[in-house]
């Protein structure tokens, strides 16, 4: 009896949570090709992608070490997905998540968010 009540309560909470999520803030659209793998598991990437990019950028600009798996151009080549860009609309990979967590995304004020860089970055 108690187990059944707990299950019902959990179900109700879940429903409420989803309903709230749908009504208040749209969930990010993370459309990724699951057949390929990123440079680190998703939970690591979610927390540390900005650190990886920051570390990378100084080596690239000041020392000229370009290309490699952690290059922004490589990120874009996968994550631009079928939208054709990592930014530019609410469904684009980078922008949809950054909109959701309300963190300003300023990489693409200078960097090109459309793929095509990998062929020329190395």
């Amino acid at each position, binding site marked *: 009896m108690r187990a059944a009540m707990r299950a019902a309560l959990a179900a109700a909470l879940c429903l409420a949570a989803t309903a709230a999520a749908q009504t208040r803030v749209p969930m990010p659209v993370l459309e990724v090709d699951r057949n390929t793998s990123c440079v680190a598991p998703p939970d690591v990437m979610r927390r540390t992608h900005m650190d990886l990019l920051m570390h990378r*950028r100084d*080596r690239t*600009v*000041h*020392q*000229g*070490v*370009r*290309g*490699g798996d952690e290059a922004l*151009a490589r990120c*874009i080549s996968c994550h631009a997905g079928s939208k054709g860009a990592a930014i530019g609309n609410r469904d684009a990979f980078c922008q949809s998540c950054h909109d959701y967590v309300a963190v300003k995304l300023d990489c693409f*004020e*200078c*960097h*090109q968010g*459309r793929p*095509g*860089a990998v062929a*020329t*970055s*190395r």
Partner: protein
Amino acid sequence: MNAQSVAREGSAAPDPDPAPVSRRRLLAAAAALGGAAIAPGVTLVEIARAAKPGEPASSKVRWGLLIDANLCREGCKECVLACNRENGLEGGSRPVDVQWIRKVELKERSTGRKLGLPVMCQHCAEPPCVDVCPTGASFKRADGIVLVDRHTCIGCRYCMMACPYKARSFVHEPLTKQKPEVPRGKGCVESCTLCVHRIDRGERTTACAEACPTKAIVFGDLADPGSEISRRLREVESRQLRADLRLETGVRYSGL
């Protein structure tokens, strides 16, 4: 002719066993080659140290240009156009549009002699833009290329004031059509990068040098005595613009 040369070789190497002769000749040839190409204190190993793709820029090289003003044609702007294409510059003619190379046309009043030359960032060894930058965004790479780190540039434009060559431009408007390998954006100062993205992937030419129809622009390593640019600098008279400032520019001009 053949018989003569064979006879000479025969007299120079009377050793009956051919194997040591060939080894000795090889060593002698290698030593002669090395001696001809390398300055005192510089070894072949060091010269081969220009960074390969994926390696940090090396201070053993100093990239530069030699521009022959005699070969630069009047009215030709191929280098400017190639630079715009390579780096995704808009190439407009409004006062706010950026330019990384500008074509300067001069005329000597007394004789009427006309002279044209492209002027870009001179990649000084002692760059005034780096001295005045308040954030450290303006910097000189180990291989002598002077760049702006746009991540730290606040757009104050002190460097534009400090540059005696007026080589730098400010981006006034938002951009959307940047080339992937040349990130650029509103609010930053920028200038010629010596096509640093090409150099870092191992290419040994710039867009302007490649596009010049008269080959008036030579790109190369000033620190390598065997490079074409060093050879030409040894052979022809060349000058640095505003040499009195003693900035030791990486871009040199001949025929001024």
